[in-house]
C-alpha cells in the first residue's frame, strides 16, 4: 500500500482544513451549493459539529485513489449511482446500515419511504436527476411532446444536441424508437438491441451536435445552435426559471438516476459521516436540497408537501422534478447493473460509431 500512497499523494493533492470534523466531497457548482445549503449548514446548526464542503470534478475516482492509497481525507462523497455500486463492489466503501435511516416525517418507515433502489449496500440516494430533452418554445410553439419527436427530423427540423457518450443516449434512442420503458434494458442486453439503438441514432447522426459538459446543452439551445437537445433537467430548470429562457422540458422518455452519498472505506470520521448522511437523507434534508436545485427527493414523504424554489421564493418545484408523478408516465430508471456490466464495451462501440 505504501507505493500507492506516494502515487496518490501526488495525484490527489488535497489540502483540507485540518480542523473540520466532517469533510463532504461533492461536484461543486450549483449542485454542490445546493448540498451545502440543504445539508452541510443545517446539519452543523442542528448538531454543533463542524463540516466542510470540498469540490471535485468527479468524486468517484478521487475517493478510489484515496482509499487505495490508505490516505482517506474525505468522510462523505456524492457519487453517481453506478459509481456507488462499482466502488462498493470493489470494497472501497463503508456499508451503510439501511435500518438506521430515519423514518419519514409522516412516520413511514425508511424502508417503505425511499423509492425502490434509492438505498443500496453502501449508498443512500440524495436526489434523482434526469436526462431529459428540451426545446426552445419560440422555435416550436406546438412543441415536440414525445421521445419519438426528438428523432423526427421532418416534423421538427433542426439540429439536435446529444450527450457524447453511450449511457442514456442508447436508452433514449430505443425509447424514441417506441420501445416501452420497461423493456429497454432487455432489448439493450442483446446485440440486436444495441444495433437497433445505433440504427435509430443513425437517422439523426448528420444533424447532431455532440456536447460534453452539462453546461453546454442549455448554451447550445440559447445560442440557437440546436433546435432541441438532451440535457440534465437541472440545467434547463436553471436557464428557464432562473434566467427566464423560453426553454421547455419534455418529460416523455426521461431517463432518471439516483445520486448518492457514500462513505469511503477508512473515512476518518466514519460515525459522524453516518450521522450526516442520516440527517441529509431525512425527509427534511432531502426537501432542503430540492429547494435549491430541481432534482427530486427520493422519499415519498419528501414529495407530499409542495417545495418552494429557494432561488425566487415562489416557484413550486413539483412540476420541475423528475419524481413528479406527471413526469413519470413514460420514464426509465437507469440500470446501474446494466451499465456496470457494459459501460466499457458500449462506450467503445459508441466511439467507433461516432468516428465512422
Amino acid at each position, binding site marked *: 500500500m505504501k507505493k500507492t500512497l506516494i502515487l496518490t499523494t*501526488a495525484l490527489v493533492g488535497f489540502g483540507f482544513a485540518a480542523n473540520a470534523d466532517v469533510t463532504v466531497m461533492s461536484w461543486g457548482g450549483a449542485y454542490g451549493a445546493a448540498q451545502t445549503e440543504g445539508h452541510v449548514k443545517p446539519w452543523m446548526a442542528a448538531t454543533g459539529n463542524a463540516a466542510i464542503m470540498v469540490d471535485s470534478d468527479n468524486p468517484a475516482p478521487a475517493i478510489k485513489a484515496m482509499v487505495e492509497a490508505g490516505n482517506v481525507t474525505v468522510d462523505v462523497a456524492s457519487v453517481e449511482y453506478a459509481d456507488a455500486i462499482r466502488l462498493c*463492489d*470493489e470494497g472501497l466503501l463503508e456499508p451503510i446500515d439501511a435500518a438506521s435511516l430515519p423514518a419519514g416525517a409522516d412516520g413511514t418507515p425508511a424502508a417503505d419511504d425511499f423509492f425502490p433502489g434509492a438505498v443500496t449496500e453502501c449508498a443512500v440516494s440524495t436526489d434523482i436527476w434526469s436526462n431529459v430533452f428540451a426545446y426552445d418554445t419560440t422555435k416550436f410553439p406546438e412543441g415536440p411532446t414525445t421521445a419519438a419527436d426528438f428523432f423526427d427530423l421532418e416534423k421538427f427540423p433542426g439540429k439536435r444536441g446529444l450527450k457524447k457518450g453511450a449511457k442514456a443516449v442508447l436508452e433514449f434512442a430505443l425509447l424514441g424508437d417506441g420501445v416501452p420503458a420497461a423493456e429497454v434494458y432487455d432489448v439493450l442486453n442483446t446485440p440486436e438491441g444495441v444495433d437497433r439503438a445505433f440504427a435509430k441514432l443513425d437517422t439523426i447522426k448528420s444533424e447532431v451536435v455532440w456536447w*460534453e459538459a452539462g453546461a453546454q446543452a442549455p448554451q447550445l439551445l440559447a445560442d440557437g445552435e440546436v433546435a432541441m437537445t438532451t440535457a440534465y433537467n437541472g440545467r434547463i430548470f436553471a436557464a428557464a426559471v432562473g434566467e427566464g429562457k423560453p426553454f421547455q422540458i419534455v418529460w416523455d422518455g426521461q431517463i432518471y438516476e439516483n445520486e448518492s452519498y457514500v462513505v469511503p472505506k477508512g473515512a476518518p470520521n466514519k460515525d459522524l459521516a453516518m450521522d450526516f448522511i442520516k440527517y441529509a437523507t431525512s425527509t427534511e434534508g432531502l426537501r432542503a436540497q430540492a429547494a435549491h436545485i430541481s432534482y427530486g427527493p427520493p422519499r415519498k414523504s419528501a414529495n407530499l408537501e409542495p417545495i418552494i424554489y429557494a432561488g425566487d421564493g415562489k416557484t413550486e418545484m413539483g412540476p420541475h422534478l423528475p419524481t413528479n408523478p406527471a413526469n413519470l408516465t413514460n420514464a426509465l430508471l437507469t440500470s446501474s447493473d446494466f451499465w*456496470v456490466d*457494459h459501460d466499457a*464495451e458500449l462506450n467503445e462501440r459508441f466511439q467507433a460509431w461516432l*468516428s465512422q
Partner: protein
Amino acid sequence: MAEATTELLTTADGRPLKAALAAAQSRAKRRAFFLVLPLLLFVLLTFLVPIGYMLKRSFEHDGFASTAPALVAWFEANPDFDPANPPEEAYAALVQDLARMQVEKTTGLSGTRINYSVPGTISLFKKGAREAKDLTPPFKESLVALDADWGRPALWRGMQSASHVYTAEFYRVASDMKLNDDGWARGEDNERIYLYLFFKTFLISGLITVICLLLAFPVSHLLATLPMAKASLLMILVLLPFWTSLLVRTTAWIALLQEQGIVNDILVGMGLIDDEGRLTMMYNMTGTIVAMTHVLLPFMILPLYSVMRVIPPSYARAARSLGATSWTTFRRVYLPQTLPGIAAGSLLVFILAVGYYITPALVGGADGQLISNLISFHMTKSNWSLAAAIAAMLLAAILVLYWLYDRLIGIDRLKLG
C-alpha cells in the same frame, strides 16, 4: 586533419592524464549531485514513481487471482483444459469460490476483473454468488441452468487469464483485441477504436504542431527583432492565453466559431455567405484544431523566441554580403540556427497536444474524441489498468518519437528557453 595523438599522456607525477581528470571532475560532480538531490527526490516521488506504478498497474491485477483460490489452483493444475467444455471439478471449484466471494463480499471485485475482458460478468457473478450455497452437484448443470453464460468458453478463457496476477490483457484490449469463445482475436469493425484513436491523436497533434510552427515562426521572429519595450508588450499578448482559464478560452472559441456565432454572423452580415450556408467551424475537426492551436501556440513561441533572440543579425548580413538572396539566407543560415527552437517547440506542442482532451471534447463534436478521452473515461469508470495500458502505449509512442528526434537532431541541441 591532425590526428589525435594515441600515446598515453600522463601528469607530472606520472598518473595517467585520464584518471587525474576523472578524479578532479568527480569531486565537482559529487557536489553538483548533492545540489540537485532535492529536485531529484521530488521528480522521483512525484513523477517516476507514479509512472512506474502506472506501468505496473497496466499488467498487474489481482482482483480475481486473490478472490478465487480454488479455481486459481485448478487452472494451475490444468493449464490445457478445454474452455469449451470444462470438467465438473472446475465447476465445483468455481461454485466453491462463488460461495466464498459471497461471504467475503468480493463478488464485485472478481466480477469486475473478468468483466474487463468478458462484458456482462459482474451481474453474472453477483447472481451466481447469491445462489452458490444452494447449488447442488453436478455443478456444471446447476450453474448453467442458473445462467447459460456460465458455460461460455470466453468466460472460462477470461477466468483462466485472470487467474494470473500478471497479464497482457489490458494491452490486448488497448490494441482492439477482443476475447471471444475461440480466444483473443481482432475485434469487430464496429468495436475497434483504440488504434484508430491513437492514429488520429497523433495525426491531429502533428497537424496542430505544424500549424503552431507556421504561426509561431514569424511572431517569434518579430518578437526577437523588436526593441525590448515593444517586444515585452507583444510577449504579454502572447502569454495572455495562459492567464485565462482553459474553459473560458474554449467557450470564447465556441461563441466565435459556432454556426450562430460571431464569425458567421459577420460573414452573413457582409453578404459573403447566406443564412442557409453558414460555415460549420465548431463541433468538428476545425473547432478542435483552432482551439488547440490557440491553447498551444505559446509553447511554440517561447522556445522559438528564446533561440531567435540570441541569433545575431550579423549572420544574416554576412550571408547577404556573401551573395545570398534573402530566401537563401533564410533557408541556409537563419532556419538551421532556429532548429533547436523548432525542435523543442514542436516536441512540447506535440506532446501536450497528445495529452489534451478537455478542449477537443468540448469543441470537437464527434471529431473531438482523442485517445486521452478514453484514458479519462476508463479512469472515471474505475478501470485503471486499462487506462494505464493505454497511457503506457502512448508513453511508448512518445518515447519512440523522442528517440527519433534524438537520432535526427540530437537531444543536446534541444533548447527550451
